[in-house]
């Protein structure tokens, strides 16, 4: 391969010095214009095809409303910039060097929330407590199943109440946050005063002390919980900080100390605390706020029939189709209809779904009504398989409906009483949200 001889620019070739034609008489031969013309013609014809095909050859952007990680419409440039910074943080995988652990569940936000949607059973979180006591002395309220070298993964202690929780979708969090408490409470009927068998109530929770009063859901006193499987968290900031701390083992100024298990002797990790700054936490909170829910599917005749059945058997008593947001710091979230198909209230779902573990004001049989938005494309981010309900036990809408009990037992029975076509139409409608 020593093509270059000593000295700049001189090329030594076996056939003779550079620039000498191997067969000089060939240079005098007449060109073959026909051949060149043919190539040129082919090239000219091919160019538009190449240009046309380029987009597909180079991948195409998914249409708006077809993903979980798209920004809500109406953001200004500054907000879009913040969205992008938050997205980078949300996708950031933490390393042990950067402070991952010492005990943790996963490396990044997105490694639990697939494509910003729901998680899979491999990522399930195990919460435990002794009644309402969070069992901090036993390493509660969550099992961290991973550990860096020098630390030991947690084991579930005996004699505690256990709950398996699939990571929920995170899109639309801003719209949920922007719903006034009064709007949510308007659907509450804790004593079932109207006698319809549905007695949804708010999970009144105390925000973490580090959440400033200026933050939505923050401040002194009880607030309506709206995030989490049991609506056990009111401020989005708290949900984010706790996820950093409990799920990834990342400290922030809000939770400045490493999460250590008291049952297994261990040292903190070697990264300096706090391991993320307030700006990084804020950018993730803002990102979650600005994530748009996917667009619902087209309204086909069958889906309209399903929607009618949905209304007839009163699924909408809990899965309230639309609520309207109030004023929000982000203008694009203000005074908008949020078609989340949930009342964000907690309901008795019966023994079959009960985890028998209280959370905030919610008891062991109560769960927040799961929003139905985004189900249309949920499979695409779970490699084709749906995982529904709090622990992912249901793989189809029908299985999820049939698992309903408690307050929803009558509606479940009404679903079973529908004709096969209506049931299929209802399922199709729900899955098109």
């Amino acid at each position, binding site marked *: 391969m020593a093509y270059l001889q000593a000295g700049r620019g001189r*090329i030594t070739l076996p056939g003779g010095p550079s620039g000498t034609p191997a067969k000089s008489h060939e240079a005098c031969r007449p060109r073959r214009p026909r051949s060149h013309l043919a190539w040129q013609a082919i090239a000219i014809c091919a160019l538009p095809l190449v240009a046309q095909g380029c987009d597909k050859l*180079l*991948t195409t952007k998914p249409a708006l409303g077809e993903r979980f990680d798209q920004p809500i419409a109406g953001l200004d440039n500054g907000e879009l910039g913040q969205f992008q910074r938050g997205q980078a943080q949300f996708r950031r995988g933490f390393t042990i*060097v950067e402070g991952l652990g010492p005990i943790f569940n996963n490396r990044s936000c997105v490694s639990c929330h697939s494509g910003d949607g729901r998680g899979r059973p491999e990522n399930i979180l195990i919460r435990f407590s002794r009644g309402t006591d969070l069992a901090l002395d036993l390493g509660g309220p969550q099992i961290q199943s991973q550990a860096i070298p020098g630390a030991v993964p947690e084991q579930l202690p005996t004699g505690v109440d256990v709950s398996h929780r699939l990571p929920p979708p995170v899109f639309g969090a801003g719209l949920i946050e922007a719903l006034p408490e009064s709007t949510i409470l308007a659907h509450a009927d804790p004593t079932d005063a109207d006698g319809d068998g549905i007695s949804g109530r708010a999970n009144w929770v105390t925000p973490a002390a580090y959440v400033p009063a200026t933050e939505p859901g923050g401040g002194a006193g009880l607030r309506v919980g709206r995030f989490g499987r049991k609506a056990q968290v009111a401020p989005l900031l708290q949900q984010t900080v706790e996820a950093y701390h409990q799920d990834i083992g990342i400290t922030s100024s809000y939770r400045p100390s490493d999460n250590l298990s008291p049952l297994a002797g261990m040292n903190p990790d070697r990264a300096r605390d706090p391991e993320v700054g307030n700006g990084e936490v804020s950018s993730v909170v803002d990102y979650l706020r600005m994530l748009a829910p996917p667009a619902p599917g087209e309204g086909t005749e069958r889906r309209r029939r399903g929607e009618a059945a949905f209304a007839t058997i009163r699924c909408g008593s809990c899965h309230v189709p639309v609520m309207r947001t109030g004023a929000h710091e982000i203008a694009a979230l203000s005074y908008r209809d949020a078609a989340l198909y949930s009342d964000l209230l907690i309901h008795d779902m019966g023994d079959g779904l009960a985890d028998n573990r209280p959370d905030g004001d919610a008891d062991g049989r109560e769960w927040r009504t799961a929003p139905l938005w985004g189900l249309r494309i949920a499979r695409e981010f779970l*490699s084709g398989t749906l995982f529904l309900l709090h622990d992912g036990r249901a793989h189809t809408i029908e299985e999820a409906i049939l698992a309903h009990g408690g307050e929803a037992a009558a509606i479940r029975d009404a679903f079973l009483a529908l004709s096969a076509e209506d049931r299929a139409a209802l399922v199709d409608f729900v899955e098109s949200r």
Partner: protein
Amino acid sequence: MRRRQPLATPGWLALAVALVPLWVAAGATSASASAPAPAVRPLNAPARSAAPASAVEPAARLSFRLLDPPDDVPHHGVWDRIAFGGQAEARFAHDRVAGVGNPDWASVQRVSGFAVARVHDRLWLLGEVAYDRATDDLVVERALVDLRLRETVALHGGVLPLPLGRANLERDAPRGEFTDRSLVATALIGVPSSQLGVGVRGLLRRASFVSYELDAVTGYDDGLIDDSPDGTRVPRGRNGWADNNGIPALAGRIALHPGPGAELGLGALAGPYNRTDLDGVTVDRSRALILAVADGATAVAGVRLAGEAALVTVDVPPGLQPLFAEQQWGASLEAARTLRQPLIGAWARSSLGAALRADAVDFDRAIPGDSKSRLSASANVRPGPSAVLRFGWYYELRRDRFDNPVPAAGLVLSAASYF
């Protein structure tokens, strides 16, 4: 743990294998297919009488790193007993991931400078400093003393290129048929990878067609776990300067050279990668990394075929096992053909070539996802053997740990040359 489903990635390889014969058949009718066999000119030729290529032993002519690595290095000039030169490659690309373009359209792919000093007929000093996009840093890739005891035995020591596959040994930018190295090389092995060490290499016996190399090196470090945000990634443990645990790793390669342009190699590295104590506190036991690479090259009907396959086994601490892979593998297969030579009448060695490559990497054998597969095509114009202008396209399918596919693709233009 989910049961493993058949991985989609071998599909790419099957497609490539199926396409190659068709391409060969098509090319045979339209172009002369002569592989530009690199002419080997000993670097010390100016100091000695210029030895004709035929004077070099056949086996030595076929291998890149046999007894005389300096023989295989093109150089810019010679000053006394020191030869020096370099290479550079620029990459211009339109890359997209799921339709979203990457604004980083221009980059330096690689730039390096080297010097080789012939202290004595049997003693050489080699140094090479390179910025490579893969390391994203200015790195000493070669700083070694090479002592040739006999034709069959040479000792070397210093910063050595690891003998892990052809891609790491033949890392010069103008040599490649593609702008981007294969996934196996970049994502699995971590090319370019050089480490501090000492070793022996040579031919099994004089005029043999079997070469060998065995080195004791510092080994990869625990960055492949501790500093890796995406799971086990060997390149993150690339550490050429120091041993983090006091126990050297063994690296070696044995290669057959059955004929011109043909080579079949088997390389491996094994050794502990982690630290067992931090500030005197024992945090773990010693854990091993084993990296095995098989590579081959040949020419069939004017088509130059090259392939590389690698298997990585990492002893992962139990607390990290579900998230960090214990086994990874990858493979690449490329075919290249010279379509026209000379391309420009006055430049006898100018050529137009085309190349196709399929490669795949599975970062975690225990789960269906966490993998990448890629198909690349490239048209290469070489004004001479020491420079190349490439125009290529690639399509890559990335799968996250949920096994969700994310497509990526790009159009790439690159220029690379020795200087």
